């Protein structure tokens, strides 16, 4: 026991405990702050009664309760935050799928060029060739599935750096995404013809992309983007508020 006592870092242990709780969207920053104060009070009390720091930590965390039990109860109180958070992740999911489909169409073009074209040249009409259609669909489905699985695992595995980073920095993300979208859409808001001028002004400006974004043919995308910005802003506001209060 001597070695564990010597190497036990109370602050580090408390930070880890807090981070573990913080992985659940059920807790607001303010809640974590209050629970941490409670835990520290409890540890101090136990230490006063002669317990070693590591023992006090173990007993105090047990008395506070496990993540699962607490998360369930806090989720009832913070249900609005939780639904905002869920809606946000659903949107992220939808956008991710859209993005992956674009990525996945790369191999599809490849297949089209090297398989469908020869089929067509050999005299078969590709639109009626079930083989070509099947192949293209299969390749697209497979690439989407593979890319989606990778993305999904990156984002949802608990304790995973990407997931934790996104949760911790959601207000920064909100600021970045909103300003990015604003920057994209601003010229169009002023005048459509400004778009060309803007692209001259900023050579990297993705004129074609912005056009698809705002050309009335893709309303779903626009609605999604606006909902995305509103959601991130709401969550960011929540986080900033509880941060300054705590």
């Amino acid at each position: 026991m001597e070695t564990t006592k010597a190497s036990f870092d109370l602050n580090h242990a408390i930070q880890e405990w807090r981070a573990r709780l913080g992985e659940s969207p059920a807790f607001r920053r303010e809640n974590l702050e209050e629970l941490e104060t409670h835990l520290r009070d409890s540890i101090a009390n136990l230490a006063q009664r002669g317990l070693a720091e590591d023992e006090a930590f173990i007993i105090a965390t047990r008395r506070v309760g496990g993540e699962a039990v607490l998360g369930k109860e806090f989720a009832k109180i913070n249900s609005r935050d939780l639904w905002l958070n869920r809606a946000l992740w659903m949107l992220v999911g939808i956008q991710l799928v859209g993005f992956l489909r674009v990525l996945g169409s790369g191999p599809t073009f490849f297949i089209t060029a090297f398989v469908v074209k020869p089929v067509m040249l050999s005299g078969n009409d590709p639109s009626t060739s079930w083989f070509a259609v099947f192949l293209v669909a299969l390749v697209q489905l497979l690439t989407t599935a593979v890319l989606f699985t990778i993305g999904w695992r990156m984002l949802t595995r608990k304790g995973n750096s990407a997931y934790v980073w996104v949760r911790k920095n959601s207000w920064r993300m909100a600021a970045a995404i909103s300003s990015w979208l604003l920057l994209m859409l601003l010229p169009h808001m002023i005048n459509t013809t400004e778009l060309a001028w803007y692209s001259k002004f900023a050579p990297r400006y993705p004129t074609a992309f912005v056009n698809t974004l705002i050309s009335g043919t893709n309303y779903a995308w626009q609605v999604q983007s606006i909902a995305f910005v509103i959601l991130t802003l709401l969550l960011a506001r929540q986080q900033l508020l509880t941060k300054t209060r705590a």
Partner: protein
Amino acid sequence: MLAKELVAASTVPLVLSVLTEGENYGYALIQRVRELSAGKIEWTEGMLYPVLHWMEKEDLIESEWRDSETGRKRKYYRLRKEGRKALHEEQQQWLAVHETLAKLWKQPKPRLT
């Protein structure tokens, strides 16, 4: 140890009652209940906070973050008018149960003795 259902039912009146002694923070609230009940009432401590926040939403209590002697900020809870009213109602109900049970248990019970 109290049954789970009894813990759930008694948390609000206990919190309201402790707060009639003056404003307090979560950890001290729990300590007070433990001390008064001689350790018979034990909560999963973290579970108190969702209850406190619910009570705040219902306007029974109000809260304020303030510096403590340890340097960390603590959230202090204070009773509100609505809370006093709620406590009064709770009191009536708990006393009704208590008095009824007390009367029943005072009767001579030949079969048990």
